[in-house]
């Protein structure tokens, strides 16, 4: 009986190894299979003693070859490990890492989203005779060893909303948060609260959480991972992966496959290597703080040593975070630095000043990331002069708007009050005087009423639309041809002549109002005051940090075609005399994808706007998402930029987002989607994933207008839809009326 059990165990191990190494032939796996078959065939003829002895030899061989296989693991093998049903899941961790836990907001499939698991857990630590139960909020995706209702850890928007809710609860209760990332990616649907918008909300809130957050990554699939992975310490399991896109997705893009076509295994494996998704890669790039070693061929539920190691790791990480922001810490800090998992006791609650320090340190941690992933060729002199310039403008802003501005405001308010008081007194005396005068025969005058003004309709305000005379006319208007509106079938729009359509009518169908795409130059010249655009940070340049084959040429081509060094143009400009900071994402540059250079420019512009107390506008001419060829260097821009947005908004800035053409994926799910003031140009499409990806991942057919701006508005993802011809007037209105208590012009 014992022998049978042990043979079954070896069979399972063999099956697991076969699954991990997939379709590719591996001599070691073949040998494991052959040796096991050989033993099974021989076993009935052996004596019990011989059978046990030979089985022991076979088990040793298994151990030896597994160790050998471990050294051969490729990136794609690791992807297969984390996706395997035998991979440890969050429930295993709750059982083995924490001393006690209570699942919150769900039990198996009775949950708003069974793929998101929340638990209140505690860790018991003994100090002498004293026992400390240290509570934590555990949040993570649950794959449930392949349970179908868990959806493979692909969390729906409301699952992420639940996670956010309990992060806020943890903040209220002043207890640390441990998040466990086990997701291939978010479930890409737009139903409220919307995949992208909810991830953006999560990132925004996590950027300011005033409790320690430790994140452990096993399967970190892009936006879905970011929804809970913005943390003070990020630990990665040695056999995990953390990537901007699944290797299959990357292969489909690289191979230009459409309509659910499958990429070749070789191309998928190649993409997995090139994307640098393993723990070692991410550790080397600085996106995870440390790597936690797993047993050979990955951790499975029976590996109790691994759980012990993980327990030590999360405890010491939490200790370290707390000690870094709190008062007395000298010896304990040194002990923890020298030896991860050192046995020290740290109370995990934070006081208000420590909380502020924690948020600041988190910001700085992410701010320092990805510095190697863009090119900044400026001479040290120009860097230092820029720094000096910013310092002085910040100083000027402080004196002009904070110090003097506040005094000026007080004086103005006082003067307003005095004036209002005077008005009351003078008004009453005047009224009395007028009454007296009107009673005299010469004092009676007829009141003049503008009857025409009151009874006729107001005139069309042509001034707001520039009477069709635009500063910049699209080159599309120079073509002598007719254009058909895509809504012609539904609305019966007649063909329009291109010079009229793209010239006077600003690319707006005069029958149904459909907005044809216009070049970003149109917006630059027709929205901002003429000659007011002053470009900044133009030297920052996109590069190929992962040495992705063929990408250098593609980048050069994009740079040559657009005349820009990256897909984001940052500039200061004026609208009706009001100075604004603008980050513009250009669809013409690699589809407006966001990489390290774009992220860095965005953050610098945000910081500059904060220092100069300028309103900030993100004009998204188009973005296809995060630039996949940059791998995690790209995906890390999601938390980085969102943190900059939070810092700016909390300083009293006004952050406006204006979407045009198509805006999808990572940027919408982070620094764009977190704005409280998001508007779209009519006919824009906004969403998380395109129709092909939705069909591929969810199996659902989506209607053609699924990502349309009006749908986004009715789902509550954006706050309004603007006509292209009225953007300037609407921006003026927005600057006058919206948010931002600390803007220079207020």
């Amino acid at each position, binding site marked *: 009986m014992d022998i049978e059990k042990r043979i079954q165990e070896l069979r399972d191990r063999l099956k697991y190894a076969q699954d991990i190494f997939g379709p590719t032939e591996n001599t070691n796996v073949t040998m494991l299979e052959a040796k096991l078959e050989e033993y099974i065939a021989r076993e009935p003829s052996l004596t019990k003693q011989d059978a046990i002895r030979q089985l022991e030899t076979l088990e040793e061989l298994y151990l030896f070859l597994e160790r050998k296989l471990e050294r051969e693991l490729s990136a794609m093998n690791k992807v297969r490990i984390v996706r395997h049903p035998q991979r440890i899941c969050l429930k295993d961790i709750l059982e083995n890492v924490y001393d006690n836990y209570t699942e919150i907001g769900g039990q198996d499939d009775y949950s708003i989203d069974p793929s998101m698991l929340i638990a209140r857990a505690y860790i018991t630590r003994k100090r002498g005779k004293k026992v400390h139960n240290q509570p934590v909020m555990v949040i993570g995706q649950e794959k449930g060893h392949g349970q179908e209702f868990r959806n493979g850890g692909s969390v729906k928007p409301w699952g992420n909303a639940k996670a956010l809710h309990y992060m806020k609860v943890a903040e209220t209760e002043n207890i640390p948060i441990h998040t466990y990332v086990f997701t291939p990616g978010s479930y890409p649907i737009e139903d409220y609260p919307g995949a992208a918008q909810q991830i953006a909300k999560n990132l925004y809130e996590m950027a300011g959480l005033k409790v320690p957050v430790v994140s452990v990554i096993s399967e970190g699939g892009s936006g879905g991972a970011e929804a809970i992975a913005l943390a003070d310490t990020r630990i990665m399991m040695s056999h995990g992966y953390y990537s901007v896109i699944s290797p299959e997705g990357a292969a489909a893009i690289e191979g230009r496959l459409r309509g659910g076509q499958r990429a070749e295994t070789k191309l998928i494996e190649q993409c997995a290597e090139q994307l640098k998704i393993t723990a070692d890669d991410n550790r080397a790039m600085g996106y995870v703080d440390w790597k936690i070693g797993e047993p050979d061929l990955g951790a499975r539920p029976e590996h109790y040593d691994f759980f012990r190691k993980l327990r030590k790791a999360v405890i010491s990480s939490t200790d370290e975070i707390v000690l870094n922001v709190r008062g007395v810490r000298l010896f304990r800090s040194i002990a923890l630095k020298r030896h991860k998992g050192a046995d020290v006791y740290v109370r995990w609650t934070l006081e208000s000043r420590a909380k502020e320090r924690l948020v600041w340190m988190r910001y700085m941690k992410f701010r320092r990331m990805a510095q190697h992933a863009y090119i900044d060729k400026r001479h040290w002199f120009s860097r230092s002069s820029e720094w000096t310039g910013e310092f002085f403008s910040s100083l000027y802003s402080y004196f002009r708007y904070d110090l003097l501005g506040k005094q000026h405001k007080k004086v103005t308010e006082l003067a307003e009050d005095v004036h209002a008081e005077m008005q009351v007194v003078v008004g009453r005396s005047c009224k009395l005087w007028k009454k007296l005068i009107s009673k005299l025969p010469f004092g009676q005058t007829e009141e003049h009423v503008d009857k025409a003004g009151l009874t006729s309709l107001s005139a069309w305000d042509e001034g707001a639309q520039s009477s069709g005379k635009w500063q910049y006319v699209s080159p599309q208007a120079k073509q002598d*041809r007719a254009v*058909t509106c895509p809504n012609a079938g539904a609305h019966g729009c007649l*063909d329009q002549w291109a010079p009229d359509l793209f010239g006077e009518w600003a690319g707006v169908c005069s029958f149904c109002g459909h907005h044809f795409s216009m070049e970003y130059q149109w917006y630059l010249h027709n929205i901002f005051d003429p000659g007011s655009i002053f470009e900044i940070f133009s030297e920052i340049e996109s590069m190929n940090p992962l040495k992705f084959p063929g990408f250098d040429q593609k980048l050069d081509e994009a740079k040559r075609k657009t005349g820009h060094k990256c897909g984001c143009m940052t500039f200061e400009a004026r609208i009706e005399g009001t100075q604004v900071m603008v980050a513009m994402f250009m669809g013409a540059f690699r589809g407006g994808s966001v990489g390290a250079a774009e992220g860095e420019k965005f953050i610098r512009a945000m910081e500059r706007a904060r220092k100069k107390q300028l309103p900030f506008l993100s004009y998204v001419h188009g973005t296809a998402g995060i630039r996949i060829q940059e791998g995690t260097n790209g995906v890390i821009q999601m938390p980085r930029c969102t943190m900059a947005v939070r810092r700016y908004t909390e300083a009293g800035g006004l952050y406006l987002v204006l979407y045009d053409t198509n805006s999808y994926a990572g940027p919408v799910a982070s620094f764009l989607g977190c704005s409280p003031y998001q508007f779209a140009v009519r006919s824009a499409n906004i969403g998380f994933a395109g129709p092909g990806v939705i069909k591929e991942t969810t199996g659902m057919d989506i*209607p*053609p207008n699924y990502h349309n701006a009006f749908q986004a508005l009715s789902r509550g993802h954006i706050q309004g839809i603007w006509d292209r011809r009225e953007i300037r007037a609407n921006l003026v209105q927005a600057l006058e009326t919206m948010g931002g208590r600390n803007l220079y012009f207020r």
Partner: protein
Amino acid sequence: MIDIRELLRELREEPYEKIVIRAPHSGRVEFVVTEPGAKVVAPSGTWKEKPGTLLARLEREQNTKPLYAPQKGEIMSFAGIRSGQFVQAGQELLTIRHFLTKEEVISRILLRALSLFCAPEKGKYYFFPEVDIKIKTKGSQTVHVEDGMELFILSRMKRETTVRYNGPAGIIYAVYFETNDSVDRDKPLIGVCPEDQVESIQDVVRRVQSDWEERD
């Protein structure tokens, strides 16, 4: 009064619908489908988002417009226009023969034979209790309706209104709504036909169900 059998005979003689494709505006036409008898498909997808077979391209002022097949069928004939020829708006280009399915034949017959009473506004519709009992026990074809008769109760947003039948007298041949389902405005609620025609309609529908041959 219409002759149902005559209608069926007509449909049997010409078991298809002719769809004439005309130029939506003037321009130079370039045919993609060139052979008579070629099979064409209709728009497909849940929202009919995938267009049907591309029949021709019409170019006017450097603006090329595709012309797709609106229905499934085969090309019956071309109107004698050559590729590259200039055509006027509304000019006939080709004709598609769409073979009628059983459902289409039945719906055509019923459309001609029945008088439809449609929902005056969106809401849930119920038959009056006595009518409802009769329908449930003896079937809808035992209910005789007359113009002005109180027939439905419309329930919407916590209010209930009586809806009177408006149309020719007859029996309820078909009920097109389910109790507790919300019915959109102008969607048919019932189909009414004169009592003496019930037999012949039923007979024709039976014959269509059993005999009609569907063609691709």
